């Protein structure tokens, strides 16, 4: 009997399932989700930087014509910068953020009206119907496979109350970025495809919104310059995208035929190109919002 108990104990030790895996490049990634980017301190810094850059570039945290929302939800809130700021902008509102991992650096105490909850959106949002009057999601295209997008939009619709607003902001792949960025884009497309993700899916979100019956819709493409020619915004965008490509090195070289050396060369070429005068690279974003009837 003792032998069997010992055997069983030994077996239990081997059955631990790791939530994170570290790539050859030393970056920590979540296992068991299609999300392509790392989940480590370096990525937390990049996400915060990206948040401030987008707020500066888009001149605000939201575009929908919300007045005095009482309950706000951010789906896939990452480091929680967006919901924290919304909680400060609307102190009378209760603001909720959900994500599969807590990436909040907790450098400062959260506003009392901000609440974070661990949740996997693919299992459904953990809120009753019509709970929010503003539901927001941003930059989910690196995390949501094409087949899951209708479910995500349907859940956002479900938890939004009649008269409430839904807003999405999605990044599209870089355009006119020279040979280095073209190679990096190719690697990213292949790696995303292997995970069922379409890096160009942002353009289809408005179709899902329309099919869900949203009214008073607005959808527009925002082109942000990337590189030295774009001044301060262009330099910030280049810093963000180069950090994204650095974070994608492990998954791309592990799942595609692109070698680590080829990836590093493409990255170096991209870094050099964005600082030249001939660079006219643009980073497109698709902003879309609408109102639930």
């Amino acid at each position, binding site marked *: 009997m003792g032998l*069997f108990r010992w*055997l069983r104990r030994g*077996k239990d030790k081997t*059955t*631990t*399932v*790791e*939530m994170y895996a570290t790539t050859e490049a030393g970056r920590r990634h*979540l*296992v*068991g*989700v*299609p999300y392509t980017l790392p989940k480590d301190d370096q990525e937390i810094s990049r996400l915060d930087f990206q948040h401030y850059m987008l707020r500066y570039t888009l001149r605000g945290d939201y575009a929908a014509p919300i007045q005095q929302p009482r309950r706000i939800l951010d789906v896939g809130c990452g480091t929680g910068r967006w919901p924290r700021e919304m909680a400060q902008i609307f102190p009378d509102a209760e603001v909720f953020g959900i994500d*599969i*991992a*807590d990436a909040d650096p907790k450098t400062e105490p959260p506003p009392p009206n901000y609440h974070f909850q*661990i*949740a*996997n959106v*693919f*299992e*459904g949002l*953990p809120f009753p119907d019509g709970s929010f009057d503003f539901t927001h999601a941003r930059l989910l295209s690196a995390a949501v496979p094409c087949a*899951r997008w209708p479910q995500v939009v349907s859940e956002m619709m479900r938890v939004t109350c009649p008269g409430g607003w839904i807003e999405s902001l999605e990044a599209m792949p870089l355009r006119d970025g020279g040979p280095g960025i073209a190679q990096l884009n190719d690697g990213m497309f292949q790696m995303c495809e292997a*995970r069922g993700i379409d890096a160009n899916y942002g353009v289809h979100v408005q179709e899902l919104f329309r099919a869900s019956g949203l009214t008073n819709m607005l959808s527009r493409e925002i082109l942000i310059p990337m590189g030295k020619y774009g001044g301060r915004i262009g330099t910030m965008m280049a810093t963000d995208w180069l950090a994204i490509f650095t974070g994608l090195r492990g998954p791309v070289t592990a799942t595609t035929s692109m070698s680590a050396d080829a990836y590093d060369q493409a990255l170096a070429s991209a870094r050099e190109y964005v600082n030249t005068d001939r660079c006219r690279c643009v980073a497109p974003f698709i902003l879309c919002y609408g109102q639930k009837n």
Partner: protein
Amino acid sequence: MDASFCVAHGVLRYVLRSLATAAILASAMCGERKCFVASLQVYQALLTSEASVQRIKALKREIERAGGRVRMTVNGSVTVVALELPPPLTPARFAPDLPFYPV
């Protein structure tokens, strides 16, 4: 010569068969059935809903009967679930709506 060869051959066959049976029994007792499966594909999901976790627990026996294996680890509010399934079985066969992805 022929008779002794036949006896030796018979003994050898008996010993080999016994060893194979013992190996199968031992591995079954240890739960190491994967030794007898060509290759198992691993799928993983991060589950945060108690209902999803209960569904996987309820499916465990059915998955094991199909030659698969279920492993679960609780990490804070997340239950990390690994399904090891012999091809061509996929998680869609057992829980099509749960977010399992190949590892």
